[in-house]
């Protein structure tokens, strides 16, 4: 079907053809293909353009570490950029496009950047935009001028702006043993732990379990290792105590053996099933962890090593064995170690011609020579590749004799015709998670690699992760690790016998071939070997500085293939051994994590919201709701054509004229119970509660420990040892925490329990001159007259057959009552009150009218108890008991808190009959051009229907001393200036005659 697909082989399903497009061109592949393997099978060699120079790039790897073949996947209007084609499983209808090119991938005008090599070297931005002056542009202004063009020319994919309709979820998981990686080591570890009865989770970032077993071509006990792995997976699937998570990348290792993983649930599907999330973020809490994450093959650094069709050796082996795709017909290999020889043989077996194996080592083992001979490859030992040729695909390469001790190239360059060059620069264990979990990695001179640090959390490693690159070692270590993680020793057992190609795991210490041309270290960020040396010459000696100056390892692949070569080049420049240069610590995430999965479902409709028992009634009866914290409360019950102001003015006026009812269920309510309940209240309130009679309520004020006002509310004594404390809506949880803290930590000897009963009670406040008559018309079982129910009195009765508790108190300045019933009866009682109120003209009112009436009455709320005011500032000093200490009493008389010029509560009246604004400043001189000399600010404002004026509450320096004086409101942001009069905050019913009746 395609130029590169082998006749047989691979684990793809050749009976299922998949159709997809890349850059608008339709292609086909097979089920089981990645986008990379399918495009390679179709003969595509050009996958993208490089970050800075816009060099043509192919596919370098076959896995998560891919730095070159980054694509954007489109799903409807949603575009997801920078996805490695090696990690995209194709599905019918997949639409992928290339990135960072204009007008097309094949003809990219910004490829001209390749000519600006030295200008665009490391530190380009710093050098170009910090100093030079070009005409009127200098420094950052020059940068701002150029930024638009640079951002268009350099970079990766373009993020979309369409809302992502996909679903993301968070999962919590617990296990005894988490196994990360499902190669032979991981499979053995999982099985060993599972056999011990442990709860095991096995995570594999690829779609299929098995890791290298899926493509290594080795055999175990005479059968292909892939079959062995499939059997092992089948056995694990039969265990109830094992959870298998394919397509799941463990990306973070945090304290307490908590690990984060991303499961790609539906990325490989045309469409998700109903309710199926696209991604799951797994928070896994593991008693112990087995890290069997394998290793990455490293590229070699030489001129032209980034040309399309230059690929890692194992990647080509994987494409051949796992996907039935040959990356070339005439393949050359360039290596510093033995592993490439096995790859050569595999590719030969798959049908490719191996034209040469170029090995930097002069002396090769007889086993390697035999493997090369079996592959019918010419051996060029003691040679190195010094350049590659071709444009958007490889046409050939040049080699020269190479002395790996001195690094010298000698003799004439020889050309070799090849359409694919495979390279192997040794292997780096994938130590990211171990690095995140603990200490600095340790350099192993033999393996020429950083090995995982000693565990500081409870994990154990196995296989290539700890530098054991053979399958036989992986199997043995995996079993041992699984047993160890399970806390078992296990009886000696016969391990599977692996038949594998021979090979020395230790590479020659060669990372770079110094020859003319760009030699890339970090492919994704276009960082060359010369950039690293330039950083050294310019004084960046620390590996951390090197990283930041050159951006080496800072691309989305996080330097998975570039860190070690970059360090080696830096070490050579410094004249130090690699361990002295050190390495950077890996940070989460290991690979890209969708923001959606982190947010999971905490957005939109799924945000928690609090509803009062009468919520649906409010909606059904025309209320406009708005949020007050998590609560939803009626703002107004508007009539047709009414503005908000018209509605609240009508509601407030009707309440003062007859009666109004408002839902106060949101008020914080705390049951304070126990033999020491009264004592606790005496300590937390500024005023006395132990003297409060049963059946009575009292207004209380709390201070913080620093003496500033904290919260206010009424507390009702329902029994000798039983109080119902109410708090402001906003401070309910703060007050609860405050009480719990003092009971648990400061006064554990007090026998008091505090319980949130906010949701137990539905509350309706009914106030106005007709309020008592309305209650009298519907309350059974108790009288509500002034004797039975005096101000701050409490009675129990029934409304519409439902038990209710009524307290006479007022927030509006009218005679008012709060009617509490069980929340489940809230709407029933509310409707009964509404019905009873009809003959009396009862209106429902919302928060706007509530606020208006409280401003008219001069009551304080959170706007005034703002964390900066004292009881005295708010004229509540009459509540500061002198008979007892209370929280805040020791600090409330500090000099700064009793200064006469403090901001204190006053009332304001607008003298120009225009509205006032919250937050506006009060000044003594009207100077619109230069507002200055603020003496305070407005905390709350409204149009007062009772006074027929625009009024406000304010905190003004000097407070009462300014009553009767005039000043100005200065609000330059809203262009509001005008005269005001400072008056008492008690605008309405100052003597309380209406409230007390």
């Amino acid at each position, binding site marked *: 079907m395609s130029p590169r697909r082998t006749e047989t082989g691979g684990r793809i399903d050749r009976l299922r053809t998949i159709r997809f497009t890349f850059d608008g061109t339709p292609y086909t592949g097979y089920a089981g293909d990645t986008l990379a393997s399918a495009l390679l099978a179709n003969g595509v060699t050009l996958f993208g353009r490089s970050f800075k120079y816009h060099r043509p790039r192919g596919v370098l790897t076959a896995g998560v570490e891919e730095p070159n073949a980054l694509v954007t996947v489109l799903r409807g209007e949603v575009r997801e950029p920078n996805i490695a084609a090696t990690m995209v499983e194709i599905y019918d209808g997949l639409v992928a496009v290339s990135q960072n090119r204009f007008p097309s991938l094949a003809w990219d005008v910004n490829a001209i950047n390749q000519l600006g090599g030295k200008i665009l070297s490391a530190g380009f931005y710093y050098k170009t935009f910090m100093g030079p002056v070009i005409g009127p542009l200098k420094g950052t202004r020059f940068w701002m001028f150029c930024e638009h063009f640079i951002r268009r020319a350099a970079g990766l994919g373009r993020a979309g702006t369409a809302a992502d309709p996909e679903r993301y*979820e*968070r*999962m*919590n*998981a*617990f296990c005894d043993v988490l196994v990360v990686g499902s190669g032979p080591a991981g499979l053995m570890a999982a099985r060993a732990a599972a056999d011990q009865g442990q*709860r095991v989770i096995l995570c594999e970032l690829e779609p299929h379990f098995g890791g290298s077993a899926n493509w290594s071509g080795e055999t175990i006990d005479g059968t292909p290792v892939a079959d062995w792995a499939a059997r092992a997976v089948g056995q694990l699937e039969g265990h109830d105590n094992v959870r298998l998570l394919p397509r799941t990348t463990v990306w973070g290792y945090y304290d307490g053996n908590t690990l984060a993983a991303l499961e790609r649930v539906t990325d490989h599907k045309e469409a998700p*099933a*109903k*309710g*199926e*999330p696209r991604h799951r973020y797994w*928070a896994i*809490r593991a008693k112990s962890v087995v890290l069997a994450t394998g290793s990455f093959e490293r590229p070699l650094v030489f001129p032209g090593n980034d040309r399309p069709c230059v690929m890692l050796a194992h990647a080509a082996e994987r494409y051949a064995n796992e996907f039935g795709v040959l990356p070339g017909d005439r393949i050359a290999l360039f290596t510093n170690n033995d592993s490439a020889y096995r790859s050569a043989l595999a590719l030969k077996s798959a049908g490719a011609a191996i034209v040469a194996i170029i090995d930097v080592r002069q002396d090769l083992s007889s086993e390697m020579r035999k493997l090369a001979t079996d592959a019918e490859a010419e051996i060029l030992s003691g040679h190195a590749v010094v350049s590659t040729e071709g444009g958007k695909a490889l046409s050939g390469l040049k080699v020269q004799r190479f002395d790996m001790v001195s690094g010298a190239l000698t003799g004439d360059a020889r050309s070799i015709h090849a359409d694919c060059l495979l390279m192997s620069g040794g292997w780096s264990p994938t130590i990211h998670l171990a690095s995140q979990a603990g200490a600095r990695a340790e350099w192993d001179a033999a393996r020429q690699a950083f090995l995982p640090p000693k565990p500081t959390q409870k994990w154990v490693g196995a296989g290539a992760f700890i530098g054991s690159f053979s399958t036989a070692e992986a199997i043995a270590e995996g079993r041992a690790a699984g047993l160890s993680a399970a806390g078992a020793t296990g009886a000696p057992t016969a391990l599977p016998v692996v038949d594998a190609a021979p090979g020395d795991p230790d590479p020659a210490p060669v990372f770079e071939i110094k020859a003319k041309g760009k030699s890339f270290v970090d492919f994704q960020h276009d960082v060359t070997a010369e950039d690293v040396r330039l950083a050294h010459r310019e004084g960046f000696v620390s590996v951390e500085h090197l990283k930041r100056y050159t951006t080496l390892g800072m691309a989305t692949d996080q330097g998975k293939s570039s860190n070690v070569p970059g360090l080696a080049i830096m070490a050579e420049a410094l004249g130090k051994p690699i361990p002295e240069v050190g390495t950077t610590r890996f940070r989460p995430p290991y690979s890209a994590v969708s923001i959606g999965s982190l947010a999971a*479902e*905490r957005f939109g*409709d*799924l*945000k*928690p*919201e*609090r*509803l*009062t*028992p009468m919520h*649906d009634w409010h909606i059904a009866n025309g209320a406009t709701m708005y949020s007050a914290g*998590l*609560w939803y409360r009626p703002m107004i019950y508007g009539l047709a054509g009414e503005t908000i102001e018209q509605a609240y003015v009508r509601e407030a006026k009707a309440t003062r004229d007859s009666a109004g009812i408002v839902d106060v*269920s949101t008020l914080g309510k705390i*049951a304070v*119970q*126990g*033999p020491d309940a009264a004592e606790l209240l005496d300590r937390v309130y500024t005023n006395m509660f132990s003297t409060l009679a049963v059946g009575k309520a009292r207004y209380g004020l709390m201070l913080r420990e620093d003496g500033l006002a904290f919260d206010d509310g009424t507390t009702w004594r329902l029994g000798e*040892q039983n109080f119902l404390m109410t708090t402001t809506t906003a401070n309910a949880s703060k007050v609860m925490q405050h009480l719990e803290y003092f009971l648990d930590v400061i006064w*554990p000897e007090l*026998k008091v*329990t505090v*319980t*949130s*009963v*906010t*949701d*137990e*009670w*539905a509350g309706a406040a009914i106030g106005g001159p007709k309020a008592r008559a309305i209650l009298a018309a519907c309350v059974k079982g108790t009288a509500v007259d002034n004797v039975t129910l005096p101000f701050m009195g409490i009675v129990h009765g029934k409304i*519409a*057959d*439902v038990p209710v508790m009524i307290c006479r108190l007022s927030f509006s300045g009218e005679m008012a009552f709060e009617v509490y019933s*069980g*929340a*489940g*009866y*809230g*709407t*029933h009682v509310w409707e009964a009150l509404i019905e009873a109120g009809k003959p009396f003209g009862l209106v429902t009112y919302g928060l706007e009218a509530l606020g208006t009436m409280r401003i008219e009455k001069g009551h304080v709320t959170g706007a005034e108890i703002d964390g900066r005011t004292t009881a005295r500032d708010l004229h509540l000093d009459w509540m500061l008991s002198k008979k007892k200490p209370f929280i805040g009493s020791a600090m409330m008389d500090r000099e700064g808190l009793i200064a006469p010029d403090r901001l204190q509560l006053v009332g304001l009246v607008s003298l120009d009959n225009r509205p006032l604004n919250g937050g506006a400043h009060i000044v003594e001189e009207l100077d619109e051009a230069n507002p200055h000399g603020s003496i305070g600010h407005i905390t709350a404002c409204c149009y007062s229907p009772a006074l027929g004026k625009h009024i406000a509450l304010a905190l003004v320096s000097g407070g009462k001393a300014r009553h009767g004086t005039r000043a100005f409101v200065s609000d330059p942001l809203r262009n509001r200036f005008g005269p005001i009069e400072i008056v008492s905050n008690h605008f309405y019913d100052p003597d309380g005659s209406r409230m007390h009746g």
Partner: protein
Amino acid sequence: MVERQSPLEPEYYPGSHGNFEHGVDVILSETRPGSILQLAAWPGEEKRLMSAIYKATGLALPDGAGGGVTDGARSAFGFAPGKFTVVDEAEGLAAAFSGVVTPAIGTVTDLSHGRTAMRIAGPKAEWVLAKFFAIDFALPAFPIGAGRSTTHHDVFAQIQRTGADQFDIYVFRSFARSFWKALCHASEEVGYEVQ
């Protein structure tokens, strides 16, 4: 007798929902117990309070944090040191404790209206709950009868395992509709039935 209004009513749709073509893996319901009480013992009085619970309900609580018991009609579990939730299908359980839990032992708080009880049952109950709570729901870690206190998106929740694959969840009434919607949403993937 006036019926209590459920906060879930406008969002309570009996029937099968979500991905149920191959059957439902969880069943969701509101259990609507008549009584939900919170009992707290003074330090050192926990055993006496547990005895009082036994006396009033017949439920013998096991020792240990989060220990609980259920007989189908009545349930009790510890949710914090010295604190227990006791639930009864019938109303009026608070009265049964009035002479049993004396001021010397602790307190009884009636939350029958203040908490809403939802039940999730079925083979995927643990899976769905794992989306919400950082709690180990596996049977050995969370045995039948046991209770846990936790939160989901600011919503405080008490959970009692009342069967091998059945959990009762108690949340504040004001949050209940929000939580119910989230529970239904999370169950779509496995197919759910509201009973």
